[in-house]
């Protein structure tokens, strides 16, 4: 069957739609071109960001020499590490329980664990700020870590839950049948099988925490400046190639972690 206006026979297949190639090209350019330009400009010799005069690694060297940047990066890594690990442990406990137990309202619970992903981040950020204020907490690294742990839980939970759901429910029964008490069954049978899910949950949570601005901004205080907050401060006084260099480095770290996560995902499905 062919419709007028179509050069090729119409098969209802998106590949035959006219203009597909251009639209796809535009989409990818829109998403990735700014990032590519940012990376290129981070190697620009000139102080004025938009004028290319020659290749240089000076801005990277400057970034590494700037003690404020190093301090902010250290804060970011401390917060992301503690928050992602805590969130992953909590998510693993929750997912294991949710996968094995049957109880009333289980579906509602499941939805509630994943819900924070869809809630605008500003809402829990403000709510947590008010909560901490009413308890009289001093805002700082500690409050940021708690805040990050909370919003990291659903990101860690989903891949672990998916992995558990892909596991044969008979597996736990087989372990129990072969004299493994619930704790040994978890360590010897369940954990090795969901480990790829746990690691990819951990990495996802780490990246999300590393990248966070809103929660950090609200819950942070003296001494808890993270890279995104620091960059925000820099940008207000004008974008320098130094900012481009820091952003490129963060992008590189994220790419490495995401690749690792995908690699683990591939490994588990084999």
């Amino acid at each position, binding site marked *: 069957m062919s419709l007028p206006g179509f050069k090729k026979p119409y098969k209802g297949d998106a590949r035959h739609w006219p203009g597909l190639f251009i639209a796809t090209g535009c989409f990818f350019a829109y998403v990735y071109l700014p990032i590519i330009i940012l990376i290129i400009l981070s190697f620009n010799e000139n102080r004025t960001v938009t004028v290319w005069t020659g290749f240089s690694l000076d801005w990277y060297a400057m970034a590494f020499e700037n003690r404020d940047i190093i301090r902010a990066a250290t804060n970011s890594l401390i917060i992301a590490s503690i928050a992602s690990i805590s969130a992953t442990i909590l998510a693993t406990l929750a997912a294991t329980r949710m996968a094995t137990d049957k109880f009333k309202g289980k579906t509602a619970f499941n939805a509630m664990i994943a819900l924070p992903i869809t809630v605008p981040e500003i809402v829990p950020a403000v709510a947590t700020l008010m909560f901490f204020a009413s308890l009289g907490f001093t805002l700082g690294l500690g409050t940021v870590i708690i805040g990050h742990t909370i919003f990291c839980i659903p990101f860690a939970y989903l891949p672990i839950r998916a992995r558990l759901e892909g596991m*044969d429910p008979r597996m736990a029964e087989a*372990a*129990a*049948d*072969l*004299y*493994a008490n619930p704790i040994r069954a978890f360590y*010897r049978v369940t954990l090795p*099988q969901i480990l790829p899910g746990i690691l990819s949950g951990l990495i996802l949570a780490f990246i999300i925490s590393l990248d966070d601005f809103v929660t950090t901004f609200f819950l942070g205080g003296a001494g808890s400046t993270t890279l995104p907050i620091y960059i925000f401060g820099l940008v207000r006084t004008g974008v320098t190639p130094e900012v481009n260099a820091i952003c490129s480095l963060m992008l590189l770290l994220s790419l490495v972690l995401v690749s690792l996560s995908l690699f683990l995902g591939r490994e588990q499905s084999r």
Partner: protein
Amino acid sequence: MIIGDAVADPAKSTGQPDAIAATSLIKVFGAGDSAFKALDNVSINIRQNEFFTLLGPSGCGKTTLLRLIAGFEQPTSGTILLNGENIIDLPPFKRPVNTVFQNYALFPHMTVAQNISFGLEMQNRPKAEIKTNVDEMLSLVRMESMAGRRITEISGGQQQRVALARALAPKPKLLLLDEPLSALDLQLRKDMQLELKRLQLETGITFIFVTHDQEEALTMSDRIAVMDKGQILQVGTPRDIYDRPQHRFVAGFIGEINLLQAGPSGSAGEPGDYAIDQTGPIRVQDGKVAQQGQSVTLAIRPECISLSLPAEGKLPGTISNVVYHGTDTIYHYTLPNGAAMRARCQNSTMTTLPFVAGDAIGWSVDPRSVSVLEDK
């Protein structure tokens, strides 16, 4: 409802308790309107060293019964004794019972040998003992050369053997097998049937085998329990079950069978004399005290019927169809009252019957080959 024979029980005479003595088991899943009674007052005794089969269609409760014995489910009410000890309150990991799962449930992150040694490790057996035991199991299931392979690297039949070895390694008092052969192709299934029987004889462990395949049940079992709708209908040896079905469902589920309505015989005959409407008298000798004057359903296997030309003392019938099957021929015929019957006759040159559709014939059956069914 307790079914089983109290007479000539060798296990009882030696004073050994039954491997499994389950009493009045009820299992209800769900609650309210959606409640489903998977087991409806089931009692059963399984003897030591027996190859015992639970046979029935899917949803009959056989797997539920197995899962109650393994401890994966708790009964709503009732008790289970294992070698005389109540195991109801023991979690599965404390029951000396191992299971071969339908899909094997082998641990994919472990090798063949690691799978087999898992149960022994969990019992904290000494390392040297585990090693000897695993080697012994590998040779028992003929998988010595595969010890280091990953589970994903071996075939379905080999996985089946590993699952057996893994369950047998801790030397359980009881081995539960949940349709373990259903995933295998026909030839492999036949081989594994013999293999399972050999393993049971060599290890001396009591096997409880769940299947919906009547042929599998008849070939392998010492005794069979036929289940339907959460109840055990009949327990007996394969011969008992096949030759003496007591229940309409049992008769229909296992093999081909003719079911005939018969009323009390007109003359004051002996117990066991019945009459088929418009056809004639039939004598039954099935060991049961038949109640006089009651209408009953009789069950007759097609191979127990002998056909001949119409004659005095034979019951009448008319051939409706003749189907040739190679080793034997099935003669479909109808009785004067309209009931359809089948007779299976072996094909040997000397006895080939010359009947074609439309012929009038005479038929008879040995009174010992007729069973009176419980009409429920």
